[in-house]
């Protein structure tokens, strides 16, 4: 067993620090606040163990929203952040970047999806949506307490591109890359490049030749 | 949030009936109309595409008075041709059911039962493609309360299947399509052929 591996395995042990969690409930304009009252979720979250700061914010992703999170991290000595807002597919990188700017490890931030997977899907059941938003926020708070600071893994980059398909899009991509001094392998399954475009006569709307 | 719907709207009532579910999917390409045999052969005013628009835009009076509502025989030539997979005859039947419910009469002739000879064998019920015939307990002079075939004029399309199937010639179409007329026509045709 290498020492490196042993060190790595300790990363997964239980975190030792006392959590000081900041919770931000986003209105997203009326996208969230139009269905549930965010203040009620704030009230609820504020009572949970480890939470030292809970507040609502009109747009968490906006400059002002992010500034508030960054200021709070310093002011309240936050070591964990929960943002109840939209999908992680939308803004996880935003909020990871935000807490990192305030000196917090980006992996100590957790999002609860109370927009796509709550208010947008349960407009017909406001009470149910509110209960769900509370549960999702609580679950993010529970998870965040156990998170470990992690470092991104750095990998080298092979400085060569491959373009699969030699039609008009592929040829153009290959040319653009090559003009930036990046070597390109352009792969085409037919005996000639050109794709469908080469089979066309003139092309709209300018009626110039395709080849 | 879905908008509240007014269940009294014609379009909502059509959608609520079996076959009417896909009413709103129509993008008015006209394939159904041009596939149909009725416009060129029977009535130039016949147009299923227009009937669907009338239903979509809540034009109730126009829809109920539309010849399309009453002439469709549900042959379903249009159904497999529809690029939006709308069961057009289903939509038309839904409109027709609502018209009948509101007291509109089918302007087409419907099958007539001779209640004095009907033996309630149920053959006509079996063969009717439109579920227009059923056996109903009826008081018949001289025969008492007995089940006899009964035609729902709202559903009958006057195709004559019942008449062809009946073993006691108790159900038939009025006037021109009566058995006697058809047999006379056939004899006339054969005589012509022989000449």
């Amino acid at each position, binding site marked *: 067993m290498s020492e490196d591996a042993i060190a790595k395995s300790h*990363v997964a042990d239980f975190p030792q620090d006392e959590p000081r969690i900041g919770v931000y409930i986003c209105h997203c304009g009326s996208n969230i606040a139009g269905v549930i009252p965010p203040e009620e979720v704030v009230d609820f979250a504020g*009572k949970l163990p480890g939470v030292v700061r809970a507040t609502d914010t009109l747009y968490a992703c906006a400059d002002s929203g992010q500034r508030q999170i960054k200021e709070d991290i310093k002011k309240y000595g936050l070591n964990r952040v929960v943002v109840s807002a939209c999908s992680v597919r939308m803004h996880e990188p935003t909020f990871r970047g935000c807490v990192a700017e305030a000196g917090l490890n980006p992996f100590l931030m957790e999002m609860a999806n109370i927009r796509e997977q709550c208010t947008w899907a349960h407009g017909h059941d406001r009470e149910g949506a509110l209960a769900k938003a509370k*549960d999702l926020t609580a679950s993010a708070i*529970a998870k965040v307490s156990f998170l470990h600071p992690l470092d991104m893994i750095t990998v080298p*980059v092979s400085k*060569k591109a491959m373009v699969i398909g030699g039609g*008009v899009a592929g040829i153009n991509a290959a040319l653009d890359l090559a003009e930036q001094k990046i070597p390109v392998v352009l792969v085409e399954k037919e005996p000639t490049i050109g794709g469908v475009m080469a089979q066309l006569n003139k092309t709209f709307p300018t009626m110039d030749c395709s080849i | 949030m879905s908008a509240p719907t007014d269940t009294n709207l014609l379009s909502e009532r059509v959608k609520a009936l079996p076959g009417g579910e896909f009413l709103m999917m129509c993008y008015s390409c006209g394939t159904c109309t041009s596939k149909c045999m009725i416009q060129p052969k029977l009535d130039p005013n016949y147009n299923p595409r227009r009937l669907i628009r009338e239903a979509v835009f809540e034009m109730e009076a126009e829809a109920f008075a539309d010849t399309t509502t009453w002439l469709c025989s549900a042959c379903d030539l249009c159904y497999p041709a529809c690029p939006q997979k709308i069961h057009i005859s289903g939509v038309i039947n839904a409109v027709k059911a609502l018209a009948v419910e509101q007291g509109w009469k089918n302007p087409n002739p419907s099958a007539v039962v001779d209640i004095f000879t009907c033996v309630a064998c149920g053959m006509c019920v079996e063969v009717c493609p439109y579920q227009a015939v059923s056996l109903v307990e009826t008081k018949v002079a001289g025969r008492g309360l007995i089940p006899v075939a009964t035609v729902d004029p709202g559903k009958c399309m006057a195709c004559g299947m019942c008449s062809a199937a009946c073993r006691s010639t108790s159900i038939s179409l009025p006037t021109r399509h009566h058995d006697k007329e058809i047999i006379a026509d056939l004899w006339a045709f054969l005589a012509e052929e022989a000449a």
Partner: protein
Amino acid sequence: MVDAARQPLIEVKTFTEVEKVEGFVGNFKVTLREKSKYVRADRCNGCGACTKACPIEVPNYFEMNLAPRKAAYVPMSQSVPLIYNIDMDACIHCYKCVEACGALEAIDFSMTDKIVEEEIGAIVVATGFSHFDPSVMSEYGYGRFPNVITSMEMERLNNSAGPTHGALVRPSDGKPPKNIAFINCVGSRDKRYNPSCSNFCCMYSIKNAILVKQMHPGTDVTIYYIDIRTPSKGYEEFYDRAREMGIKFVQGRPSEITEDSETHQLFITGEDITLGKVVEREFDMVMLNQAAIPQPDQNQMSSVLSVAQSPGGWFMEYHPKLRPMDSPTDGIFFAGACQGPKDIPASVAQGSAAAARASRILHSDEWHIEPTVAVVWPDRCVSAQDKSCGICSRACPYSAIDYTQGKAAEVITAKCHGCGACVGECPHDSITQLHYTDAEILAQIRTLLATEPEKKILALRCHWCSYGGADLAGTSHFEYSANERGIKVMCSARMDADFIYEAYRLGAGAVLFSGCHPQDCHYITGQVSGSKRANRLKTIFERMGMSPGRFRIEWISAAEGDKYARVINEMQATLDAIPPEALKEEIERLRPEMARKLTRLPNIPGVQQALDQTDEIIQLMTELHMEKV
């Protein structure tokens, strides 16, 4: 085309197929099969002597099979690179080409396919589209009526480099048509074949109509359409120009084409919907504007690249608005019609955009990837105690785990993609995944089920597909039961049996086990591990006598928002159908059985603390809930 061949930094490999793509962003290893052309690229000078000598003729795909080519051929005279091919399926081995090639000695019948490996930093996928075959639509008679042709056949007939040298003629008699119709949306906007719009065909039929009018001004041209779509710059003006030239537009989708079998004249029956009348019109020739469809090998490419497909079969982008060029896999980008039908300006724009996305990576010396990798607790690994195991290593889709009996298993971090399959499979809980540890996930499950668990539907979703499906359900405002409570892990392979036992022990009403469809898995075979485990659990729960439907397995892609909403609503209906008393009784009856499965759970590092801490949260949540009630 020629620019690409001239550019010294572009290596053009034609007649080449992608066999395998391994690795990750910055470090892809791509295996290519360079199919044998039987002509040596280093010697062929493109003179064409072999073609002249070749006695064999077969149809040329490039000319839509309207013209022949030889067995020794190039698809067209402007082929790039201009290197000839010998088609071995057609060749009769007469060796006349070898003779004709003479001293150049470019033709080499001993050539075989070459397998090459390339080290690649980023990949742009631009595999394009294919055309719908209208012969399946019997109503239009393509294949039966010689004068019904497709749009691509029209392209070649109209092309001065094509088989007729640009003379537009009727296939039945070789005479120029005086009266042509174009039918749009053949196989597109048609739920029987392809429900979507093919994007460029409106413009495309207008273009062909204008070309016909320009070259043969006396010809009558009619376009049948459902809607004309001209959304880009200059397109509406182009449509105007067509009307100015006298091209007639008929709104209404024809239902049938019939033919006079002697003259091969065609008759189109269709409702002219502005007239509200069915009109039959006669034409000399009809062009069907065939739908754009995914490539026939799109499914295969999708599994080679491990990228998912949208409904309809096109490659699915990371985000339809914000990251339209990115695949869900970092370092793989889409350009052009492989992601959805596109016209030339859009394809060119996407080609440049994808190149820009790729160059972000290619201009960097290093790239960062998520550290959500697996780690082994060496003291817990049974292999370290000299027991034979290796389950983790076998479960790993990337061979990223070093297993030797007698030594603790070791994860090779650079190879680990972070699916968690090893974690889900390890029977001794000796391995975990960073950012998705058992402690973290159990804490989430326990809080989600803190109050009224019997009413709740716990949904376990994978990051790439089912979580995206749930997002799409919301984005599309498909409403579903608010009793759903979701957990996200990277792959269904990470969904530990313990999570599900714990959910039922806590009294969950229902549990959904969901992930990608098998062919879409972001982690090659992760879904297979997940699926096997889920099915095993299903059998166990059936044997325990759990009501059917309380445990459900569904594969839901990121494009199936409607399915996600439907599945949750169906599960809610299943729960509603069980009388509350019966459900309560069942939960109580199964609780000890679930608990028995979990006896070893607290031994996992961190889990006991997680259980204690969440107990505190649960108690608080219960109190708050009681206050409210």
